[in-house]
């Protein structure tokens, strides 16, 4: 009886310490994460515009969104970033990591070369790429193209080329991260699997498809999900390469830039909140769908 009481007080004392440690963080998470999340949902049902009174207008914002061609345009753009960015970056980073994994000599140096772009400020690199895309004689790409006898390209000034031109530096900056994760995944595969495959006389392609890729599934799931989320949230490169416009003619404008514009250029905060809810639902759905698809295959 007495022992149990002592245990209780020790446990209680620990619990008091624990809640003491958690006090400030709980306040933080409630006020800076959960309350704003609820606020975003609430605001999506209002006509909030910063200055005027906030009034509930039901699902009017959602109805308006569904009939807004500008919204469907940015949804199309956003999924184009995703549809091009994820496969291209996954393929590039896997091929590089697969070969880099076997290289011993200069491994660290090569890995560093591929990784460095990942650490840069997107806005700074956006300027470098903008410079490359300039017409001749300023832009390096067009100088090379004309030197090689091809015609010059409009890149960021073209309604068809601008989106890939904005996406290219985002892929360039992203694959360093994917390569490092792939390398970690490749190293985690036990050597015995390869030895067993070698004893069976399996060729390099069979080993790749029957040993390496299946064993890399968790890594691939992780990277597909994280890179999908990153491309769906693309903003920095687009803003910095198109002077915050998403042009020409909105052809590069992604959802996040549309949200930014609706909220801070037009001050339609309620309508912008509705768009953030759509982004949230898309991100949630994509994570769940991809996890399920890749797991059940």
């Amino acid at each position, binding site marked *: 009886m007495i022992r149990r009481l002592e245990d209780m007080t020790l*446990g209680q004392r620990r*619990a008091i*310490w*624990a*809640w003491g*440690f958690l006090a400030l*963080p709980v306040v*933080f*998470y409630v006020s*800076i*994460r959960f309350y*704003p*999340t609820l606020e*975003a949902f609430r*605001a999506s049902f209002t006509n909030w515009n910063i200055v005027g009174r906030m009034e509930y207008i039901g699902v009017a914002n959602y109805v308006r969104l569904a009939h807004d061609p500008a919204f469907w345009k940015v949804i199309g753009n956003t999924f184009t970033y995703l549809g091009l960015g994820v496969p291209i970056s996954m393929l590039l980073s896997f091929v*590089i990591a697969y*070969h880099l994994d076997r*290289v011993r000599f200069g*491994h*660290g140096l090569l*890995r*560093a*070369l*591929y*990784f*460095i*772009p990942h*650490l*840069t*400020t997107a*806005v*700074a*690199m956006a*300027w*470098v790429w903008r*410079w*490359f895309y*300039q017409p001749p004689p*300023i832009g390096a790409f067009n100088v090379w193209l004309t030197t090689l006898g091809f015609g010059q390209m409009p890149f960021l000034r073209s309604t068809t080329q601008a989106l890939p031109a904005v996406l290219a530096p985002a892929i360039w900056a992203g694959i360093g991260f994917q390569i*490092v*994760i792939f*390398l*970690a*995944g490749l*190293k985690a595969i036990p*050597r015995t699997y390869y*030895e067993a495959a070698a004893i069976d006389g399996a060729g390099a392609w069979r080993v790749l498809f029957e040993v390496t890729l299946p064993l890399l599934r968790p890594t691939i799931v*992780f990277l597909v999900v994280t890179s999908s989320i990153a491309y769906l949230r693309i903003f*920095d490169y687009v*803003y*910095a390469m198109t*002077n915050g416009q998403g042009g020409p003619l909105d052809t590069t404008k992604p959802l*996040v830039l549309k949200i930014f514009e609706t909220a*801070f250029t037009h001050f339609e905060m309620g309508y*912008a*909140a509705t768009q953030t*809810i759509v982004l*949230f639902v898309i*991100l*949630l759905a994509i994570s769940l769908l991809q996890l399920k698809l890749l797991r059940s295959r």
Partner: protein
Amino acid sequence: MSAAGPPQGARPPGRVRRAATLGGEPSTRTRTMAPGNIAVWTLLLLGGIVMVMPFVYMLAASFKFNHEIYELSLLPREATLDNYRRLFERSGFPRWFGNSLLIATVTTASVLFFDSLVGYTLAKFRFRGRYLVFIAILSTLMIPTEMLVLPWYSMARNFGWLDTYWGVAFPGLMTGFGTFLMKQFFEGIPDDLLDAGRLDGLNEFQVWWQVALPLVTPALSALAIFTFLGNWTAFLWPLIAITDRNLYTLPVGLASFSGEFQTEWEMVMTGASVATIPTILVFLLLQRYIIRGISLAGLKA
């Protein structure tokens, strides 16, 4: 390289092969590389050079005079530091640099302190509501920043935090990701060590600070690097929270260059260099921690 890779024993076949061919062959390269491998190696090197070309061009341009900017040669005929001097004299750059440094440092310190404290509490204390707190913090990882910036903005506006350092920093003072990461690492620490500290008369805070924290320094350094870089390059929220040019962070200031130095590409490249060089220096100094940290974080997640 070896420090960032797996333990040496992880690749016994490679070791055996290397040891077997060690006799008499002079150079490392010929010893381990078949002709096909040399081709792959060369391709990898070329790819790597292409990857860093944008930096090389950026840096080269920052040392060039305006009349040389149209020449694509890498080395300027006459190198100059003039662009850097002009950048620091004529624009808000020194101030922006300082703003970014201050905000990133304070945020990183706060994240290290609170994320590791909360991670430790969730890993090592048994109390009612522990699981609920953990799930609640974990669930914040699913909430995109873009959804929170509007409520943050109205909050900051009501409290007068717009155009202040605090206004830029407050949303990032704790992170669900860091808490989760630190919890994973603290779970690997044996309870006996902590009990030994308690027997020595340390209170619970001292046990965390003096016994547990020193044991997870690799995880702490990885978290520090991610958090610092994340805040150094953060764009969306600082763009919203700051309208006063003097309080811009580097990325926001750089984005505003379109008006100022639009046609002076050597000045734009100098600004981009100043924003980029610190992160590359940090990487070169702490390369093994960064790579190991990313690999660990990726695997744990």
